[in-house]
């Protein structure tokens, strides 16, 4: 009995001390006075955007005399809780948010984001952004991108290109291919040596993006508008998508893509490129920084997919101003600072892709190559977004379809028919 009292007391003491000490940790909101900018983003402080935005915060504080209350959030937290936070008094004045119909589009249509048309006119941001980069910044009243008012300002871009292992190319006596035929010759040469040329992953986005790139190489802008912006019907037995699916099948049969890829994740494909297992990796500019720091065992380079006017890519995630923000003017001023050439150059020189930089400010040769490829694409209106964007479930459906294709459980025609049905029913739900 006495023992009981003692441990009960122990528990009570623990509880009481926890209650007392809570004073310093609970709460912590506040802010909201006229001279504070509450800012959230989810870039790590060593990334290109993290470095550039850190500088932008300093410039902003100097010029306006306001203080920035910055919190680094996790991508996951912003993704899954934005609609709740932005509808409360805890909403920040400005935050980085995902572009796309299901994210920024949804919040815009719910009235949670501020219409930025006036700010665009005042600061002239639309002159700085290429048209295909503006697509993801505007949303109509249903939250579909491409038209309507501006709701966000992208600071950086991203696109998908070919990464190749220069040492392996040199050892095999191969040149950078400039046509698809040459690309197939290069891949054949590697296969003959017993090396699988393409690092691929069908469990995640990489193979879907290659598939979309193949379709784009036979497509024009109106195909992209039909596919991404629902401006017309997509013909799933037409030349573009038939070519894409059949080529994936042919390349798998020829051994350019390993059938093991059906179980690989993007991370597996990327690390396999870094450790020199595969000489070619077709993937996004988001790998660039990682390859620069981690792929140190060999020399590598990049090139755009040959014989294609367009490639997968888009403007990056963007600044949005919540409707409940307390200091919208300060937020717009901050966005304008991030669009300045010197801040944009910081993004460029640290492995990111600025949307409004002066090319002569970029000094790092690897970054020059990357940004050069991106500018080539935007100049020819070649940013074509990503294959999984049209519907909320198409990412998984596309991966599943392509897995069945390379596992040989379905023929290209069957895969296209299945994907076409899934795409159409998803689009019908959105367009109504």
């Amino acid at each position, binding site marked *: 009995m006495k023992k*009981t009292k003692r441990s009960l007391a122990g528990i009570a003491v623990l509880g009481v001390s926890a209650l007392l000490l809570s004073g310093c940790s609970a709460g912590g909101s506040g802010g909201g006075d006229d001279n504070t900018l509450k800012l959230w983003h989810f870039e790590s402080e060593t990334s290109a955007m993290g470095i550039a935005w850190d500088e932008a915060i300093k410039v902003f504080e100097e010029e306006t005399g306001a203080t920035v209350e910055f919190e680094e959030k996790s991508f996951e937290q912003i993704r899954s809780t934005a609609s709740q936070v932005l509808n409360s008094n805890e909403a920040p004045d400005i935050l980085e948010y995902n572009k796309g119909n299901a994210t920024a589009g949804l919040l815009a249509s719910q009235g949670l984001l501020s219409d930025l048309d006036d700010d665009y006119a005042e600061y002239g941001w639309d002159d700085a952004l290429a048209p295909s980069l503006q697509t993801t910044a505007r949303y109509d009243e249903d939250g579909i991108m491409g038209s309507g008012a501006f709701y966000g300002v992208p600071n950086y871009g991203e696109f998908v290109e070919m990464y190749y292992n220069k040492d392996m190319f040199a050892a095999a006596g191969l040149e950078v291919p400039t046509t698809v035929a040459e690309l197939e010759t290069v891949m054949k040469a590697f296969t003959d040596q017993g090396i699988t040329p393409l690092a691929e992953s069908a469990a995640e986005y990489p193979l879907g993006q290659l598939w979309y790139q193949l379709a784009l190489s036979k497509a024009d802008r109106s195909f992209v508008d039909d596919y991404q912006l629902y401006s017309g019907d997509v013909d799933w037995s037409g030349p573009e998508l038939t070519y894409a699916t059949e080529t994936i099948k042919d390349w798998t049969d020829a051994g350019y893509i390993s059938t093991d890829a059906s179980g690989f994740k993007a991370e597996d494909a990327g690390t396999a490129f870094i450790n020199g297992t595969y000489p070619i990796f077709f993937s996004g500019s988001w790998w660039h920084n990682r390859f620069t720091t981690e792929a140190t065992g060999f020399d590598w380079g990049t090139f755009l997919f040959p014989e294609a006017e367009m490639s997968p890519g888009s403007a990056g995630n963007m600044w949005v101003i919540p409707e409940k923000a307390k200091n919208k003017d300060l937020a717009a001023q901050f966005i304008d600072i991030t669009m300045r050439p010197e801040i944009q150059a910081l993004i460029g020189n640290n492995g990111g892709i600025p949307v409004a930089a002066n090319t002569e400010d970029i000094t790092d040769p690897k970054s020059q190559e990357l940004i050069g490829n991106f500018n080539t694409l935007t100049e020819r209106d070649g940013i074509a977004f990503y294959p999984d964007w049209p519907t909320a479930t198409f990412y998984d459906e596309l991966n599943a379809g392509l897995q069945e294709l390379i596992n040989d459980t379905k023929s290209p025609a069957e895969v296209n028919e299945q994907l076409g049905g899934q795409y159409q029913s998803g689009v019908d739900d959105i367009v109504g």
Partner: protein
Amino acid sequence: MSTTITVREPAGPATPTGGPAAPARKKKNRSSTTRKTFGDWMILLVAILIGLLIAVPFFLILINSFKSPADYNAAGPLTLPTDLYFDGMVNFWERVNFPEKLWNSFFISSVVAILAVAISLLNAFALGIGRVRGRTWIVLLILLANMLPQEVLLYPLYFMFKTVGLYDNQWAVIIIFVVIQSAFGTYLLASVLGTFPKEILEAASLDGASRWTILYRVVYPITKPTLSVLIIFFFIWTWNEFLIPLTFLVSNASQTVPVSIAVLQGDRLMDVTTTSASALLGLLPTLIFFLIFQRTLTRGITAGAVK
């Protein structure tokens, strides 16, 4: 209220109760160790194998926590690290201000564990010993808190706590988990107390004990082993919760360890070695907590036995 009692009482009384039980058990154990058959060895072997299988993910976290990214890229996740690499852990520690997250998690989990056990005991006393009419339905109703997926609860809870001004406050998370955990606790304790020996209760009433005294002097000491197991469970469960803390703890300063680990997962890229290091850091406190309380738990069982 009981703090004053602690000061007066020394630790002595645990021994007499533990005394008679312990030697008897020891004798039994000794006789079985001498006669280990082939079957016993096989069972031991299978148990060890299953144990290893369960521990595999933990070993993977352990070896990848101390691996440099270059090493990971070159050799993959399954090999031992070539050098010990601590930068991942140090970076994570500093990036999220780990001690603060540790305290938040500890604070939320311990308050939840204690309050939830207290409420479970009170509920179960009414339902299991008080024999309230329709108690099965009441238990079922309470259990709904456990049975509903948290995703379903999220929006109603969000609107409720926003209205009362507790959004972005640790007390929102504490209140939610006290309810959710005590639902399970009530269910478990109500069935335990349903089989509580009537003779003891009657004897206590004959001695003139009030209901409160019965709860505090009779039921509580005897159910203490179960309560300490519940405390450990509630603490660890609350510690590992992700979705509700993620939603309700908006400010970084109030976030918990699992929520802060999510910072490392980007839009498309992940950092396996740092993520492992952070997982290890997040797991250690629960492991330590369990090991500490495991000892008081076994002591509690002998102390609470009905004689």
